[in-house]
C-alpha cells in the first residue's frame, strides 16, 4: 500500500470539517432519534435517509469500502477522520444501521461477488434499507432454536413463521434472515440457513411494536407462504448458524469492517455535569453534593474505560493472556454503562426526575428519561447482558456451559 502523507490526511480533514459544518442540520424542528432503533415516524425516517445519502454522496461514508462495489476505495484512516468530523459537527445518526454495520460487512466478508455488486451500494446510499430477522417471539436468547421455516419449492424458498424486534422492518427492502431449512437435522444448529431476503413480497407483513416509551421503531414480521427467489440463500444450505454467528460478531463490534459514521449517539457524562449544575439539592447545585460528585466521577471513569479498552485492544502484548476478552466484553460494558448513566441522570434531577417527554418543565425535554427506557434495547437486543456474561464466562474464562 502506498504511504499516505500527513498533508493528504489534513487536507481531507479540512474538507470534511467544512462539508459537515455546511451541511449538518442537527435540529430540523422535530426530535431526531438518538439511535437507529428509535426511528418512529416517517418524518424522522425521510430526514435521516436523505442525510445518509448526502453523506455517502459526499464521500464520507464507506470511504474505505472497495470502490468496485460503491465504496470510496480509500485507506481506513480517511473514513476515521470523516466520522470524527461528523461527530464534531454533531451530525445526526446514519439510518441504515443493519445494512451498514452488519449486513454490509458480512456480505463483503462472506458473500459472493454477485451479492456484493447487488447490495453494497444500496446499503451505503440508504436506497435499500435493511432489517434483521433473527429473534422470534418464542426464541430470543436461544437464537439457535429459531423455528421460522424455509422450504425449497422449485427455484424458490417458501417462508412461514414470525420474526420479532425487526428494527425498521416497515421500511426495509431486505432482511438478513435466519430460518430453519431442515427440521430433521442432527442438531438444532445444522438445520439453519441464512438468507438475504427481499421484504416487499406477498406473504410478508410487518406490524409495528409499541415500545415501553410509547413510541415505535420495531416491528414484528409475519411470513405466510411468502415466496422468495432461490438465490436469496447466502452461503450453503445448513450453514446458517455459522453466518449468523459472524453477523453477531459485527453486531457486537467484535469484528471491524464497518463503513464508518455512527448509528447511535451516546450520552456523555460531561453533559450530565451540566445537568448536575442545573438540578438542586438543599438549595445548592446538585454538583456540590459529595455523593453526587462521587457517582459522577465513577461514571466519567467508566466512560474512559470504554475508550481505553478499545485502544488497549490494539496493543498486542497487553492482550495476549486472553486475546478475545476485550472485544467480547465491549458490548456488555458499553450497553450497561449507558443504561446506568441515563438512570443516574434521572435520579440527579430530584423530584423533576419524574417528568417525561412532553412536559415543558422537564430537564432537557425529558431526553434522559426516554434515553434510559430506550437503553434497554441495547442491553437486551443483540444478546442480553446475561447472555453476554455467559459468552465471556465460557469463551474468555473457559467456564463450563450453563
Amino acid at each position, binding site marked *: 500500500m502506498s504511504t499516505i502523507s500527513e498533508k493528504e490526511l489534513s487536507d481531507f480533514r479540512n474538507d470534511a470539517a467544512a462539508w459537515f459544518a455546511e451541511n449538518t442540520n442537527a435540529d430540523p424542528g422535530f426530535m431526531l432519534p438518538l439511535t437507529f432503533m428509535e426511528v418512529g415516524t416517517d418524518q424522522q425516517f425521510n430526514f435521516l435517509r436523505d442525510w445518509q445519502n448526502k453523506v455517502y454522496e459526499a464521500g464520507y461514508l464507506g470511504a474505505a469500502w472497495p470502490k468496485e462495489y460503491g465504496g470510496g476505495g480509500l485507506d481506513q484512516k480517511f473514513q476515521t477522520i470523516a466520522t470524527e468530523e461528523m461527530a464534531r459537527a454533531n451530525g445526526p445518526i446514519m439510518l441504515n444501521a443493519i445494512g451498514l454495520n452488519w449486513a454490509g460487512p458480512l456480505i463483503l466478508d462472506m458473500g459472493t461477488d454477485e451479492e456484493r455488486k447487488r447490495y453494497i451500494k444500496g446499503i451505503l446510499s440508504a436506497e435499500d434499507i435493511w432489517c434483521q430477522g433473527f429473534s422470534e417471539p418464542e426464541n430470543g436468547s436461544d437464537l439457535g432454536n429459531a423455528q421460522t421455516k424455509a422450504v425449497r419449492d422449485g427455484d424458490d424458498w417458501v417462508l412461514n413463521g414470525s420474526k420479532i424486534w425487526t428494527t425498521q422492518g416497515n421500511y426495509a427492502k431486505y432482511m438478513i434472515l435466519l430460518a430453519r431449512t431442515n427440521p430433521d437435522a442432527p442438531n438444532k444448529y445444522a438445520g439453519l440457513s441464512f438468507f438475504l431476503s427481499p421484504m416487499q413480497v406477498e406473504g410478508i407483513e410487518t406490524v409495528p411494536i409499541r415500545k415501553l416509551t410509547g413510541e415505535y421503531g420495531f416491528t414484528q414480521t409475519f411470513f405466510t407462504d411468502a415466496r422468495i427467489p432461490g438465490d436469496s440463500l447466502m452461503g450453503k444450505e445448513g450453514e446458517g448458524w455459522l453466518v449468523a454467528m459472524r453477523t453477531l460478531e459485527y453486531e457486537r463490534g467484535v469484528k471491524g469492517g464497518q463503513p464508518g459514521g455512527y448509528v447511535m449517539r451516546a450520552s456523555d457524562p460531561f453533559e450530565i455535569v451540566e445537568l448536575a449544575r442545573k438540578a438542586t439539592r438543599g438549595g445548592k447545585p446538585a454538583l456540590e453534593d*459529595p455523593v453526587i460528585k462521587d457517582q459522577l466521577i465513577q461514571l466519567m*471513569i467508566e466512560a474512559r474505560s470504554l475508550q*481505553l479498552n478499545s*485502544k*488497549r485492544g490494539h496493543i498486542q*502484548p497487553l492482550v495476549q493472556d486472553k486475546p478475545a476478552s476485550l472485544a467480547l466484553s465491549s458490548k456488555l460494558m458499553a450497553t450497561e454503562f449507558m443504561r446506568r448513566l441515563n438512570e443516574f441522570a434521572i435520579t440527579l434531577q430530584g423530584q423533576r426526575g419524574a417528568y417525561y417527554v412532553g412536559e415543558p418543565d422537564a430537564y432537557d425535554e425529558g431526553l434522559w428519561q426516554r434515553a434510559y427506557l430506550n437503553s434497554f434495547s441495547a442491553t437486551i437486543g443483540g444478546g442480553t447482558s*446475561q447472555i453476554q*456474561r455467559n459468552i465471556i*464466562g465460557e469463551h*474468555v474464562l473457559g467456564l463450563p456451559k450453563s
Partner: protein
Amino acid sequence: MSKKATIGFSEEQAQLLEVATTFCRDKSPIEKVRSLIEDERGYDDAIWTEMAELGWLAIAVPEEFGGIGLGMAEVVPVVEQMGHAMMAGPFVSTTLAAQAMLVSGTDDQKQKYLPGLCAGTKATLALSEPHGDWDLGHVECTAERAGDTLKLSGRKTFVENADTADLLLVSVSLDGAPALVLLERSALPEGALRREVVIDETRRSYQVTLDGAEVSTEGLLDSALTAAALTHVDLCASLLLSAEMCGAAASCIDYTVDYLQTRKQFGKKIGSYQALKHPIVDAHVGYEQARSHLYCAAFNFTQQGEGEVATRIAKAQAGDALSFAADRAIQFHGGFGFTYDCDAQLYRRRSLWCENQHGDAAYQRAKLADLLL
C-alpha cells in the same frame, strides 16, 4: 480530564513485561509466598540480588546517577508481575525513595545515594504516622535543629521492611513545615523498630520511634521542594500500587476460575451455574478496565495534570477490581474459602493493604472531583 484518553506501550515496557512475567512466575510460586510468610525477613535476599542484577532498581533513575534512564512507565509492568506472583520485598519502597531524591535531593545526596539504590541498596519510606491520614503533608513528627544536627522525635508507622532497609526517607516537621530527611538505619537507637501486625502477612511493616535519633543537616532534602517530592512519591506509589493490584487481580481471577472449572456440586461443575459465572465475569471485566487505566496512567504519568488524573483513576479502579475479585474468590471457594489453606485470603488481605495505602477508591474519586468538576 481530556475527553480522549490515550494509551501507549513502549518497546521497553514490552520487554520488561515479558521478562518480569517469567521471572516472577518462576521465583515466586505460591508455596514460596507461603513459606516466606513464616520468615522473619519476609522476602528472599537472593532474589533481591537477582532483581538488582537485572537492573530493575535502576529503571527510572537517570543514567548520570547509575540508572537506565527510563521512567515510571517502565517500572509498571515489573511491579504488575510481582503483584501477579504475590511477591513482597523492598523493591517498591526503594524505587520510591529514589524518586523522592530525584525531585528534591541535593546534588550531593543524589551522587552519594542513587548509584547505590540502583545497585541493590535497600531503602524505605517513613512518611505515615499513627493518625493514619492519607495526606502526606500531615506530619506531626518533629526535627529540632541543634547546630548542624537534627534531633528527631515522634513515631512513624507502616514503614515497610525497615528491619533490612539501609536507608530511611523520613518526613518530619521542621521549622513549622514538612521536611524530608535521609536517615541511615544505623543511626536509629536500639529498640526503635517494632514490627506491626498487618493484614497482608506477606509484607513486613514496622513502626519507627524516632526519639533519640540524630542526623546531620546534610541529610535534609531541599525543603523548598518538599511538597513537590511528597506529591510525586504519593503518585508514584499510587501508580505502583495500581500495578500490583492489577497483577494480583488477574491471578486471583485465574485461581477462582480454576476452582469453578473443577469443583462439582449437584453433579455439575460449579462454574456452569450462572450465580457464580456471572459475578466472576464481572470481576474479570472490572480487572480489564483497571488494567486499561493502569497502562493509561503509565503512559501519561509525566504529563502535567493528565498524569495525576489517570493515576488516581487507576488507583481507584484497581482497588475496586481487586477488592471485588478477592472478596468473591473467598465466597466462591465455599467452605474451603474460609480456610487458611485457600489462597483467596492471601488476595483479600493483600487488597486490603493496597487499598488502604495512599488513599482508597472513594478518596481518589474525591480528589478527582476536585480536579475535574
